[in-house]
C-alpha cells in the first residue's frame, strides 16, 4: 500500500475542481488526500445489516409538489448578489475558446 497519491492524481482532482496548485500544495495534498481515502476505506469495512440502499436518512417517500407557480425574484435584486452583471445578465469570463 502506497503512502501517498501520485502527483498526477492530485493534479487530476485539482483540474476537476478548476483550481491551480503550487508545487508545495501538490506535495501536501498527495499525503492529505491519501489519508482521506484511507478513512473512507475504513468506513467501507463496516458490515451492514442489510444491503438496502440508503440515499437519505429519511425513511419516507418524496412528497411531490403540485405544478403551480410561486413567487420569483426581481432580476434587479438578483444582480445585487452577482459579482459582475450586464443589464439583466450575469457576466462571466468567456467560456468557449475557438
Amino acid at each position: 500500500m502506497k503512502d501517498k497519491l501520485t502527483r498526477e492524481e492530485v493534479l487530476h482532482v485539482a483540474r476537476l475542481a478548476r483550481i491551480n496548485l503550487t508545487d508545495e500544495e501538490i506535495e501536501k495534498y498527495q499525503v492529505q488526500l491519501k489519508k482521506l481515502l484511507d478513512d473512507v476505506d475504513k468506513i467501507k469495512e463496516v458490515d451492514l445489516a442489510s444491503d438496502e440502499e440508503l440515499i437519505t436518512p429519511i425513511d419516507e417517500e418524496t412528497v411531490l409538489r403540485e405544478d403551480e407557480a410561486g413567487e420569483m425574484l426581481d432580476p434587479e435584486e438578483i444582480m445585487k448578489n452577482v459579482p459582475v452583471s450586464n443589464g439583466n445578465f450575469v457576466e462571466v469570463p468567456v467560456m468557449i475558446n475557438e
Partner: protein
Amino acid sequence: MADYKKTIGIEIHTELKTKTKIFSNSVNGYGKTANSNVNVVDLGYPGTLPTLNVEVIRLALKAALILNCEINKEMHFDRKNYFYPDNPKNYQITQAETPIGVNGYVEIEVNGEKKKVRIHDIHIEEDTCKSIHYKHHSFLDFNRAGVPLVEIVTEADMHSSEEAMAYVEKLRELFLYADISDCKIEEGSMRCDVNISVSKTDELGTRAEIKNIGSISNVGRAIEKEALRQIDLLEKGEEVAFATYRYDEKSDQTIIMRVKEAGNDYRYFPEPDIPFVVIDDEFIEEVRSSIPMLASERREKYVEAGISLLNANKIIQNRSLSNYLNKFLDGGINLVVASNILLGDISAYLNKTGLDIENTKLTDDKFRDVVNKLNSGDINSKVFKDILDDLMEKDSSVDEIIASKGIKIISDPEELKKIVNDVLSSNESSVNDYKNGNTRAIKFLMGQIMKETKGSANPELVNKLLEEELNK
C-alpha cells in the same frame, strides 16, 4: 467508401411542458426578460432545497410508456458534479442509477422497411442555464436553469443518416402528439447529440460525439460529414480521437470542442435532498390512459378511410386539424371530402386569420352538414368558397348562410335538362368532337353549363345529364 459501416446512437434532450420548473415553483418559460423566471432554488443559493414537481414525473412516465420501456417504480436522483458557469450548484441533479424507464424501443420506417431502435433508457434531469458567448465574456440567463428535461438514450442501432433522421422525426412526432414537449429543435426545446463511429469489421470504431445539432436535416448532414472525416483518417492510417464535436452549418463541417472527460470524473452520488420517488400501478395506469391517439395510429385510420398518405401526413403535421378531424372518425361523413376542405380552403382561412379551428364558429354540426352537402353535390366547391367566411364567423346554420347569400343550388333535373340542351344546341362543334371520340369535349360543355348557371348547378347531376344527352 462503401465498405465502411456507420454505427450511430442518439441522445435526445427534450424539455417537458410543465408550468413550473422541476425542483422549484418558478415559471418554466423563456420570459422576455433575462433572469426573470428565477428563484433562490434555481440560483443554487445556500440552504435551499429541491421540491420535485409531480407533473414532471407524470410527463416523463408518459414518455417512458410511449417508448415501450420497463418502468422503475422506485427511483432516486443523483448528483453529477462538474464546475462550469452554467450550473450554479456545481452539480446537476439527474438520474444515473435508476432512470424512470429502461429497455424500450421505437419503431421507425426507412424506404418502406420497418425497424426497431432500442431505447437504453429515459431519465429525468434539470436543464442548465443558457449561456450566450461573446469574444471576451459570456452572459448567463437562468430562466432555463431547472427546466425539466428527459434524456432519451438509444442503443447504437442505427446505421445510416436516413435511419437517424427517421428516429428523431419519430420521437418528435410521438412527444408532440402526447403533449409531452413542444419539440422545437430550432429553439432548443429538443436537442440532439449523435454518437457515430465507422468500421470495416464487426468491431466498433472509436466514436465521436456531435453535440446539439440544430435541425433534423442537419442530423443527416452532420453524420455524413463526420463519417467521411473518420474514414479519411483511418485510410491515412491515423486514429479517430474520442472527442466531442459540434456541427457548423455554414462550413458544413464537424468542429472539435473538447476531448471527452471520462464518465467517473463526474463523481455521481445519490442526491440526499430528494428521498425515494415511488410510483404505484394506479398512477401508471392513470398516466397510460391519458395518452392520446398517437400519430402512427391516426395515419393508419386516415389511410383506411381513403385519405391519401400525402394528405394524411399533412393533417398529422397540424395537430389541431387532426384532433378536429378525429371527432368525425366514427362515421357519418365522408372523411376524404372532410380532409380535402380542411387542408384546402379551411387551412387557407386559418392561415389568413391566424385562428385555430377550435376558435372559429365552425361547430361540429355545421362541419358535418357542409361535408355532407359537398359530398351529395347539394353545393359545389365554388359555393363552399363563397360561404366559408360566414361558416367560420357566424352562428347561423349552413342552410341559413346559403339562403342569406342568395345562392340557389339547381338540383331539379327538369330545369337542368333544359339548360343542358340549350348549351348543347349552341355548341354543335363540341358535340361533334365528342361524338367523334374526343371525350375531353365534355369538360368544355360542362364549363359552359356552369357558366350559364353561375356555378349553382349540382355538378354530379349535370355530368349525368350531359352523358345521357350526348349518348342519345
